[in-house]
């Protein structure tokens, strides 16, 4: 097991409009990409963000060594319960996740 953030070059989360969040995991090389791709379980990621797994979209992009997740924002941007207007802090959850 290893912390995802220690394996990859960057994990970035951003709003994709007020209602969606998108998270990009940038790997340095194909070997890391392959490990991350296999190690990341969609159900575990959906649990981490408390979103319905059916709404989680995943893109494994070998040409960029990137794994990308998009999901309805856990809290809609700017609502009373929103804590992070730009959605950048959510990346930390994946960064600190243990993967096989």
């Amino acid at each position: 097991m290893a912390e995802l953030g220690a394996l990859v070059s960057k994990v970035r989360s951003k709003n994709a409009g007020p209602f969606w969040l998108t998270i990009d995991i940038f790997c340095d090389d194909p070997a890391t990409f392959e490990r991350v791709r296999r190690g990341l379980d969609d159900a575990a990621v959906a649990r981490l963000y408390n979103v319905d797994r059916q709404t989680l979209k995943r893109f494994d992009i070998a040409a960029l060594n990137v794994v990308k997740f998009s999901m309805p924002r856990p809290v809609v941007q700017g609502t009373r319960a929103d804590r992070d207007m730009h959605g950048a802090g959510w990346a930390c959850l994946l960064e600190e996740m243990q993967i096989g």
Partner: protein
Amino acid sequence: MTRVLVPAGALGLGYDRGALARGVANRPDIIAIDGGSTDSGPSYLGRGVSKYSRASTRAEWRELMLARAEAGVPLVIGTAGTCGADPAVDWLFDITREIAAEEGMRLRVATLKSGQPAARVKAALAAGRIRPLPAAPDISDDILDACSNIVALAGAEQIAAALATGADIVIAGRTTDTAIIAALPLIRGDHAGAAWHGAKVGECGALATTQPNSGVIQIDFDATGFTLEPMAPGAAATPYTVSAHMLYENSDPFILHEPGGHLDVTAAEYSAPDARRVRVEGSRWVPGRYTVKLEGARIVGHQTVGLAVIRDRRYVAHARDWAADVQARVTEKIAARMGLARAEFTVELRLIGIDATLGPLETRRDLPVEVGILGILTCPTAEQAAEAAKILNPYLLHHPLTEDEPMPTFAFPFSPAEMQRGALYEFCLNHVMDLDDPMAAFALELHEVGHG
């Protein structure tokens, strides 16, 4: 071939002046810059105001107006004043008039307004001409009536109409990020997939290069593709920086929806003619139904916040319990003393240092040195929120963990302790509206400004 010069990802962000001069010397056909997005939250759209200072906007806009005069080509801004609501277009138009007068310029300025009267949107809703996008909130006539601003995102067709007036400057309200860049290449018959793809890569300025802060890029569009080049001497675009940009703030990295169709970059091929430029071919434009996306914001309450900082080790260790206790007591007292129903107000204590960013999703449990207690009171009116915050105040100052201990006092950074946040706005639309005529929902006007 169409050469588009993009000075920065947004007006007000700054850019490299030398790079802009280089771009102007390369004889662009148009200068295009974005003025905003929803990314800073609903308050800007709700109030119809800019996030950036008038002084910064004025300084940068003056430089772009001078660059335009030198290049002798149109200057186009989309989503003027952060939100692109009608008052934000007027705001930038006023600034433009002032600068034109000061610089002795005589200009034709087109304004394109994207504001939507609630009646138009309600009629479209009743006619079944509004459809929700994924994760859209529910809407109703009441919610539409409550919006202080509703805008529709203009596409390339409306920008093309503005350019067709022969305007020197186009100040557009809310547009898609890409429309201001794609419009001229599309008018001239360049490759449609390339026009939209190049526009998507270029809309954040130099973000798709190795020096994001340099701002300025140039994109050449032609019959088969586009070539992107940063204007700062040390900056480079590479197949990686350009292809990776489709990830940015995009829920699908291969598809981008626009009015009248979508861009599909699945088959795009990226190559490097040299170490600084990238060539892209193979992107596809897929025509579809003509729809425009809607955005709206409405007031859902008013807020007052207070901030205290706890440094005492024992209180830090028990901060969650302490905050839960304060919240319960204050909620009860506000209801009793102000006569508000529980559903009308909220008391939230956000623990900075514990879980202020992630809330219930936080997975770490480390103890910090100190904890900031951000008290957030949300009530129907501003006066009620201010009053509720004063009921919270003594608890933030002195509330003990247990009954039988000396009264603690926590650190208040300010006097007065409370800060009025004003209205709390929410985005309440994530829908598209069908249009038979692209101009049906937009107002284009041509003005003569300045003298000389």
